[in-house]
């Protein structure tokens, strides 16, 4: 365990180099967010009543919370680095050292998220402060605890999915296209574009059979108090099941890939 804490330390120092980049990225990211919020404000101005059960305040809060969850869990460079490690033969050293590659990557991912969140928290906090009239706070302690749990599991799930995708490098030379194709699906199905309940009900229900809503939509809806009581615990249980399934898949793909691995350049 201690060695992985050490890796987190190294990861923090490594990512601190990119702090300006992180800052620019989070700042630029606020531009389309502002545009989306203004777009919804225009839509609500011209209509009576809410959209699929969302008041304007809840709709704007949805996007703000989604931005926070995204900062805490999104995978930045991790998948490219894993793919490069495999392609260039760098993982050979992990096969002979007493370090587990998955745990190693997860330590680096955690370090990266820690620094990104720390850097991005300033612009995001100022942004939310400007929109404080539209920002709802969690209703009760259960929502807070549920939110914290679901964000942690969303992070795990996000990492494991990206990790497994990057492991495809054992079989194909260029994984970037596959990662982008999955990312496009994820962008819609996890609720990045809009809350999933504004989709036609059949589509929204179908999406709940995939792991994608548990990456973003579920934590946000826990925060907004849309999933309470049994629905909350049921949702967390399903999310935990997806995490375990993704973990098993990641281990399986690794064990298969390593058999195929030819240590190019290593």
């Amino acid at each position, binding site marked *: 365990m201690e060695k992985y804490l050490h890796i987190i330390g190294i990861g923090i120092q490594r990512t601190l180099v990119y702090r300006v*980049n*992180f800052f*620019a*990225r989070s*700042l630029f990211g606020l531009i389309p967010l502002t545009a989306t919020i203004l777009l919804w404000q*225009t839509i609500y101005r011209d209509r009576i009543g809410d959209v699929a059960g969302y008041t304007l305040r809840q709709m704007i809060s949805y996007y703000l919370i989604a931005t926070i969850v995204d900062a805490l869990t999104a995978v930045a460079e991790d998948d490219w680095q894993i793919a490069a490690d495999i392609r260039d033969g760098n993982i050979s050293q992990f096969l002979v050292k007493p370090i587990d590659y998955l745990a190693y990557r997860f330590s680096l991912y955690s370090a990266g998220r820690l620094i990104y969140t720390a850097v991005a928290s300033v612009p995001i906090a100022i942004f939310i402060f400007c929109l404080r009239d539209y920002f709802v706070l969690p209703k009760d302690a259960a929502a807070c605890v549920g939110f914290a749990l679901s964000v942690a599991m969303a992070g795990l799930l996000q990492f494991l999915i990206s990790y497994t995708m990057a492991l495809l490098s054992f079989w194909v030379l260029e994984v970037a296209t596959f990662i982008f194709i999955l990312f496009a699906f994820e962008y819609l199905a996890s609720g990045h*574009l*809009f809350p999933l309940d*504004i989709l036609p009900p059949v589509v929204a229900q179908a999406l709940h059979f995939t792991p994608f809503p548990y990456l973003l939509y579920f934590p946000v809806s826990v925060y907004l108090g849309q999933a309470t009581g049994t629905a909350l615990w049921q949702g967390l249980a399903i999310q935990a099941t997806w995490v375990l399934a993704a973990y098993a898949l990641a281990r399986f793909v690794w064990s298969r890939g390593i058999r195929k691995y030819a240590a190019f350049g290593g």
Partner: protein
Amino acid sequence: MKPSPERDDVRANDTSSLAPLNRYLGLYAALWKNSVTREMGFKSNFLLWIVVELLWFALQLTFMTVIYSHTDHIGTWTKWEVVLLVGAAHFIQQIFTALFLVNCTQLSEHIRTGKLDFMLLLPVNTRFLVSFRQVDLGGFINAASAVAVMVYAARELQLAPSAAQIAGFLALCAVGLLIHYSLMFLLAAISFWTVQAQGIVYGYYNLFNIARMPDAAFGGPFKAVFTFVLPILLVVNVPVKLLAKKLESPWEPALLLAMACACFAASELFWRFSLRRYTSASS
């Protein structure tokens, strides 16, 4: 990048006023040939990238369609007008990708590796070489999918644009393209100051996101900034308004043209200013 073999012949003809233009067209043709050869080396990858772009385009269309399942207008914009807008935005963005994107993102790499020194020594305008070095052919194919969506939306709107309107639309798209190019080149030139400018160039993607939104959704300072400072809101909205007969006054195209000239002038000034400060990475 090899210097053009016909360089000396062309130089000898410099007395004719058309010669420089011909020379640069010849150079550009050679750069195209290089790019085609390079792309054909990775055919399956080339096709997969087209799939990726198609998916993202479908995603943008889905976003607007889902929004319009809950409302029938955003400001003055109806559903099919917005589909036309998203199509036109994708069209301009893909032409931009085809001609300029890689070149702009690679500038920081050229500076970091010192490759720029070599380009500065070549007997051509360096900005020309940096801006036009590579062509991304996939962009043209993706632009075709955008045209298909635009044609469909125009039919839904029962628009029957005349040849003059289409020509006007394309001309305004070209002006919009000039804005995208100038702004992105300006951002890329920041890499003369900081080595890690790729993040800044990547940030421009966020501006593409606003380009495809109907201008009537915005007001106040946001609209002012993205009309008069970074005129992204004009790039796609003005050409589409011409096509959909939504222009409120002839001043809108005039403003687009004026802002494009201003952006280009600003990027050229900044480029020259940066070059004067350039000290090279290799020495």
